[in-house]
């Protein structure tokens, strides 16, 4: 049985999820957000100069440098030469998302079982309330974008509760990257609900101090999230050798 949520102030999913996660939180519509969005949408290449960005966004040098500083602090760009900046890998393709999930499958259960795991009980209540309210929405009223925010918040919460400082830092940075760059997060309603149910089950186990069980549940949760759409499909199954048939 799930534990009841605490009576806490209502906060929109989009807010709770991003609170404090990234410098980009308060940058909606800012130049940094536009640059990152354009990179995630493959409008700009992975190597950019300040002058090229000034031209594209018709922005003064100081604004571009400020935007780059924000992106750099989130680990999204690093300086290559005095004039050029390089975008780090982001979650913009199915392959990148596969690799992200494989990485998380290794790290997130470890975040839970590492000694010193400690959760903020008020934050648990907020997360729980948020997810339960989302689950109450009718089919068709569940937004994948709002889900992504909530999902990143949940997994960031697990990361920040970890007793291992390196796992904590690495996973928090990765969740920031997911939140800001993950594309193609359109998920059927059934899976959205199932996924939130899995989050709640993990929180239940953690609150009962059953961390090993929670870590196992995290593995199941991430494996279920690994489903990817086939790239090329056609009628029939092609037996080996048939591809040369012309």
């Amino acid at each position, binding site marked *: 049985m799930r534990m009841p949520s605490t009576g806490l102030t209502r906060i929109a999913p989009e807010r709770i999820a991003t609170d404090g996660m990234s410098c980009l939180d308060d940058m909606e519509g800012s130049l940094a957000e536009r640059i990152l969005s354009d990179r995630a*949408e493959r409008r700009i290449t992975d190597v950019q100069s300040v002058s090229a960005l000034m031209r594209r966004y018709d922005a003064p040098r100081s604004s571009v440098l400020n935007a780059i500083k924000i992106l750099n602090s989130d680990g999204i760009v690093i300086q290559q030469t005095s004039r050029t900046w390089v975008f780090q890998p982001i979650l913009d393709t199915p392959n990148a998302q596969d690799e992200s999930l494989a990485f998380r499958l290794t790290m997130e259960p470890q975040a839970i079982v590492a000694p010193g795991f400690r959760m903020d009980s008020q934050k648990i209540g907020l997360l729980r309330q948020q997810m339960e309210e989302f689950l109450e929405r009718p089919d068709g009223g569940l937004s994948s974008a709002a889900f992504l925010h909530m999902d990143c918040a949940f997994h960031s919460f697990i990361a920040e509760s970890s007793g291992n400082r390196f796992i904590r830092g690495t996973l928090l940075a990765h969740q920031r990257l997911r939140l800001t760059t993950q*594309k193609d997060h359109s998920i059927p*309603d059934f899976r*959205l609900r199932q996924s939130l149910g899995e989050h709640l089950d993990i929180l239940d186990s953690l609150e009962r101090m059953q961390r090993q069980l929670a870590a196992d549940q995290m593995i199941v949760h991430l494996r279920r999230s690994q489903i990817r759409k*086939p*790239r090329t*499909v*056609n009628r029939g199954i092609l037996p080996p050798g048939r*591809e040369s*048939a012309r």
Partner: protein
Amino acid sequence: MTGPLIALFPEASFGSALNCVGIAQQLQREGAVPVFVCHPGFNGIFAEYGFREYQLPVASTAARQTEETWQAFMTAHLEHFSRTPTAQLTTYVAPTWEAIVDTVVQVEAALEALLKRIKPDAIVLDNVIMFPAFANAGVPWIRVVSCAETEIADPNVPPYLSGMAADDPGRPAFEAAYLDAVDAAHRRYNVFRRRCALAPLPAGQFLEPSPHLNLLLAPRAIRHERAQPLPEDRFVFLDGCIREEAQFEPPRLPVDDGPLVYLSFGSLGAIDTPLIGRMIEAFSTLPARFLVNVGGFLEHYQQVPDNVCLGSWFPQPSVVAQADLFIHHGGNNSYCEALYHGVPSLVMPYCWDGHDNGLRAEQTGTGLTLRRHGWSSRQLGDTLTMLLNDPAMRERMAGISARMALENGATVAARAILRKLDRG
């Protein structure tokens, strides 16, 4: 007590798979228990909609190779997709039938064992060929024709895969060429059928109509007037089987003005990255917003224009509902979704029933066609402009959409299946 267990087996294409999801969602609402038998590569797709899955039993090496080998197969065939339907008979259609027959032979024994384990009360087969294990399962089987209506022949219906009108003078020659091209696969398939205690099928036919129930995904607006009407007790026409999908929020684009155009070439089309690349280049000059489904090939694209958004997957029904125009390959599922939402189609056919639906879109005033190759940016732009600014077509589409919404094909399908079971 639970409702009847219904095993759905869509072929390995998104159109068919998602069409069956629409029917399964409705079957579930009506109290049945739908489960899916799925091709390798589709594992998990149906589970994401909440349905139990059983994998089509194939050798593990074949399962591993499926995606890569199909990509190689499709890449090898890309050049054929710009040819005429007649020219494709020997270059694409015949090898594809060979592969389909191979599949049937390969999975038969394991499929028979799987069905004994599932113990379905009925089977829904949305495919282009009969797997003998289904016919021999001892339960009613329902055929879903989710390709174009041309799959069920009639003198007034154009020949299957031809892209020609029913009264086209070239019809006899095409039909003869079709039979000739598929003859080897067909003979091999009939030998296999006999071995499985099934009667052989007439030349060119790989799947018989079900003696129980046949569901044709052919909305009234595009249906053909048949010379020999299909018996109503066994043939039910559907006005779309639109599944429920997650709500789609169109992304904000740097250039965010103008009508919304959605492009998706279906299961096969995303592999044609040169064509999609050319189209994206042309889109950059047009005053509209474009959502482009590039499947698993996002990494092939750079410097995407400011009025274009690429994605490897879109919740199509929800996107089409918000679009002003749908560019697709003429896959029946895509075409029916466009009709259902009252959105005009620009059909750029590759192969198979895409040719038939392309012609039908023009004949019924529900869209236009454009050949995949040989178009100029200007021609593409003019065609899109024409489709986006045709008030008569828009009014016609709105009427079609309203009628289809009232008829609700998925509900009709689910109830027809359950009625058939009630009667035994």
